[in-house]
């Protein structure tokens, strides 16, 4: 019984971390219409920098400055934001799909740095050993799990409330306005390039924050955490939940993560021995089909965007 409960705590923590990433993407895609093809890169940038700043020192390894967790994660968030600002400033003036290509390229480049720059990132074996916040004062493992879940949920709630206020403010209306009709927004004195850049940077910083929480949760980060499949999963979560609806984004994160975990478990248990090497591709096909299927048949998601009605 306690095994089930601690698994549920573990599952909910991971789903909540991903929900934060999806909220960041929702600001970019759902409210501003920006295509981020490298979600994993901004998540990973936050994660690696948090690890470098807050991790334990290792011989022959850069980093391990043992900074307090809030400082470390702030560094991670800042770095993700800087990365987003640099590439956003380069591409947001151009054709809309340049951002997609550039962010996809950032993800490929960061993954190859993570795999190869051993002095910095530990290479293929990654970096491990992270003093988790308040670990010393909570001795019991299960209680600590609960505490960490509460911490992640608190961050999720803060991001959710912050974004809800942001998108319901005049600023949020301006973002939607440039998404719908750039010329009209420009004629009202809005600067589309600047608004897009701000939205892109804020969304990426939220992803970086989720990366920092992920590092504190696993006390590990490796190049496989930056693999493109994360980007696909986060996109599937947003399109299933409903782009342009923050409640939908959180719902989609929990639904897809449950489906992903359940399908992985079912394949590992029931698939014949010979198929075990191929459970990954089967899951990837499922994620791809979810994305394409939703776009074809229900592009608005489970909880569609609500415009102009009801302030809650």
């Amino acid at each position, binding site marked *: 019984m306690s095994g089930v409960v601690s698994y549920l705590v573990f599952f909910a923590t991971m789903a909540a971390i991903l929900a934060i990433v999806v909220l960041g993407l929702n600001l970019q895609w759902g409210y501003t219409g920006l295509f981020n093809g490298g979600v994993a890169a901004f998540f990973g940038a936050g994660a690696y920098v948090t690890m470098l700043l807050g991790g334990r020192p290792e011989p022959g390894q850069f980093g391990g400055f043992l900074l307090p967790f809030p400082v470390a994660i702030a560094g991670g968030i800042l770095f993700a934001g800087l990365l987003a600002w640099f590439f956003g400033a380069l591409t947001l003036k*151009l054709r809309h*799909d340049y951002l*997609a290509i550039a962010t996809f*390229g950032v993800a490929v*480049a960061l993954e190859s740095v993570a795999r190869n720059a051993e002095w910095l990132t530990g290479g293929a074996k990654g970096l491990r050993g992270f003093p988790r916040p308040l670990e010393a004062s909570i001795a019991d493992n299960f209680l600590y799990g609960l505490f960490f879940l509460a911490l992640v949920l608190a961050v999720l709630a803060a991001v959710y409330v912050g974004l809800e206020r942001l998108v319901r403010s005049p600023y949020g209306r301006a973002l939607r306005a440039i998404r719908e009709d750039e010329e009209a927004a420009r004629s009202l004195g809005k600067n589309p390039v600047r608004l897009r850049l701000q939205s892109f940077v804020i969304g990426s910083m939220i992803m970086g924050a989720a990366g920092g929480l992920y590092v504190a949760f696993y006390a590990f980060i490796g190049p496989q955490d930056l693999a493109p499949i994360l980007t696909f999963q986060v996109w599937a979560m947003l399109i299933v939940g409903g782009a342009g609806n923050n409640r939908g984004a959180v719902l989609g994160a929990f639904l897809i993560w449950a489906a992903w975990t359940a399908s992985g478990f079912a394949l590992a248990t029931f698939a014949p021995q010979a198929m075990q090497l191929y459970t990954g591709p089967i899951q990837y096909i499922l994620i791809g089909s979810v994305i394409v299927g939703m776009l074809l048949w229900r592009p608005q998601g489970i909880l569609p965007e609500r415009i102009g009605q009801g302030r809650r």
Partner: protein
Amino acid sequence: MIQNVLDGVLTGAVISLGAIGLTMVMHMLRFANFAYAELLAIGAYAALVFDKVLAALAPVLASAFKPLTLSASLALATLLAMAITGASAVLLDWLIFRRIRAKADALSMVFASFGVALIVRNAITLAFGHDAKLFSKDIAFATVLSTDPLILVKADQVFVLIAALALMAAFHIVLTRTAFGFALRAVAENPNLAQVAGVRLSTMIVSVWLIGGAFSAAAGVFYTLTNHLSPALGHNFLLPVFAATIVGGIGSVYGAVLGGFLVGVASALSLAVLPSGYVPAMPFLIILAVLLLRPHGLFGEDQA
């Protein structure tokens, strides 16, 4: 160093062939197609299958043209693969992209292409396995043409370069000398005006997918002729063909060809100074440089 340049020119020819179709699709349908490079993989695997089938049906076809490792069955299989890949490109458009184009914006197409790429790549993995494949094991022992022991040039590599250039030249003649070529360029220039002049847009879209698919299949086969084939082929070529397209300027066929060679040679040269693990990131650096210096590419005129 000379070896690096030679290898780069060869990879460049493959990238160029891939980028020709991509630049036309990106320009005409106005979306960055992340599923496009999977056509290279579809083509290469289709050729692998046809080669085996043809060699089994008519064993006389299976012997290689010396000094190449290329056999008649593989040459025929390549033509079949080009047709099949063109047809799959049309089919994917008809099943998925056309429907999304009808009701949503260009970025939803980008999004859908991500999903399609994931499905195609992993379906190939399920069908053919993770392990790397070769058309012919003889390639490891193929005759080396050069007399300098430090420079390795195989006959197959020379053939690949010539065949790729021939395909590009043929396409150039089609573009500049035939009514179809004029129509294609007209649609790329201004779709509305071309329609007024009696060009059928839907026919042109199908032709662009067919041409792009066929060229990608050839690119996939040419690459596999001298390298290993794995389901990651499409993923590995995705960033290089995008880089070639952006270097050349979206919509410019000649730009894409030049861009392909540039990206190929630059990546191969970077091997001389960087550890090989960083090579996948090289096309990205080229994209960055172009965006900083000349955002619309060498020959591009596409605006936002």
